[in-house]
């Protein structure tokens, strides 16, 4: 395998960037979460409308690169109609595969999307009885998203940039 860092997007990423599905704030969402930050240069907000532990609607907003937007679009499309448990099971690897393979330096886009979704699901259960399948501990994908955010905090502090 060539170890060159391949930057090109798949045609699918370009298509979803051009015509993202489920874009925009959802006023009647009952679970919302964000991963990443403006300072990171990548930030995804996921809105969920959940009915009886099933996602009846999903949408997103994204501040980030084309891959970020495409990933969020794909993820929201995938989870519509799924139970929360099924949605929880989606990994960033799956997203990347569905997108025709994200360039390695864009993996964090997938990570952020999954991170935002899981945060939203956790948020949903904050005041509800937690189901068995929901782990107490953060999953690797969630930790990954957290690490990205932490890294940026450190970098920002180091050079004294403000964070939003």
């Amino acid at each position: 395998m060539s170890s060159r860092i391949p930057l090109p997007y798949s045609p699918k990423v370009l298509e979803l960037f051009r015509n993202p599905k489920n874009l925009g704030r959802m006023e009647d969402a009952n679970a919302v979460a964000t991963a990443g930050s403006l300072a990171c240069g990548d930030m995804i907000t996921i809105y969920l409308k959940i009915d009886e532990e099933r996602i009846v609607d999903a949408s997103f907003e994204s501040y980030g690169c084309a891959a970020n937007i495409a990933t969020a679009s794909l993820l929201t499309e995938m989870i519509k109609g799924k139970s929360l448990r099924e949605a929880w099971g989606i990994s960033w690897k799956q997203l990347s595969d569905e997108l025709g393979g994200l360039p390695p330096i864009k993996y964090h886009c997938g990570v952020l999307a999954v991170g935002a979704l899981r945060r939203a699901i956790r948020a949903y259960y904050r005041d509800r009885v937690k189901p068995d399948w929901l782990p107490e501990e953060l999953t690797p994908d969630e930790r990954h998203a957290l690490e990205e955010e932490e890294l940026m905090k450190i970098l920002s502090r180091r050079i004294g940039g403000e964070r939003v």
Partner: protein
Amino acid sequence: MGKDLLEQLEKVKSLVRAHGGPRREVYLDLENSGLAFEEALAALQEAYRIYGNPSITHRPGWRALEVILEAEVGLMDLIGVSDGEIIFTHNGTEANNLAIMGFAKASRGRRKILVSQIEHLSIKFPAERLQENGFKLVEIPVDEEGFVDLDYLAGQVDGNTLMVSVAAVNHEIGTIQDLKAIAEVVRDKSPEAVIHTDACDALGRIPLDLEKAGVDMASFSGHKAFAPKGVGALYIREGIKIDPILHGQLSSQRLWPGAEDVPAIAGFAKALEILRRSFDECRYKMRRLRDLLINGLLGNIDGVMLNGPKGDRRAPDNANMSFLYCEGEALTVELSLRGVYVSSGSACTSRTLEPSHVLLAIGRPYEIAHGSILMKVSPMHEEEDIKYALEQIPEAVSRIRSISPKVMM
């Protein structure tokens, strides 16, 4: 062949197909790959008929030598130097590496190297590497427009200072440094310290009078000076000793072995000739187009700002703008779909998590750096090109903003 490689190729091909050819195209990403004068491209093609290697005693060899000497004369004239030599490399990166590493290699005694905080990576990285060989690196801070802090510089130059390297024009934000003032400060503290300038983005954009300015070494890049790719150059003042960093067949280029790329050098010679005869014309045209672009954006979009200095203290070709709440990489893709080609200082375009070190050094917060795009105009652009860009950019920015979380705004 690797299946992965074939897949990658297939993927890029289908990506290009999916992208489609926009109806109109305006190429403004001259930072990453320059535009050449048509005449310079023709000269390159023409010179392929010469074949010769300038070290060989036959007609094609002498013709090749003629080409190289023409380029040398043309460059020395344009940058205002009368002695020393020109070493031809293949790009500015190689010239910068030779200047920093080759000079450090040849030096005995002095160990301190000063470079500005906003140097191109082909200066910054070699200088950082030298620390492994016992050199001490000091980065000179810059103000919010990118001008080096002369007081700080004065405080750092001492008897241990080997060299000071500051780009004549910053590649990202167009800051035109006062080389003469820098050289005076340096000479005052240490007459023997050598002054190098990365002039890759200065050649063809600002008048250069390097001998008067007191500069000892200067790097150039063909494709940044409207010449074809494949050529760079390092000017070395008479008396400065440099060691080669690559080794091989002695060519007429003492310090960069291997057969010269004569056709590329012929293209460079032609570009230099054009610049010599129409430098002011090119410069004023670029400045007009640049101002049309900058003012057009400042006047038509909210939350936009210019990075770097204004007016005559800024390179005539450079427009670096930040759009709040608008991630730069997404904007480059959106603009690409509209046929306007730019680059961004966003982290997403840098292969690391970090956005442009230049924008951070002038104190821009991360989110401003992420929302930056870099555009450069050239003598080959026309007003219609800029007008087209001015139509497309606001629409692209508002589309990308429409995707951003509303809470931010």
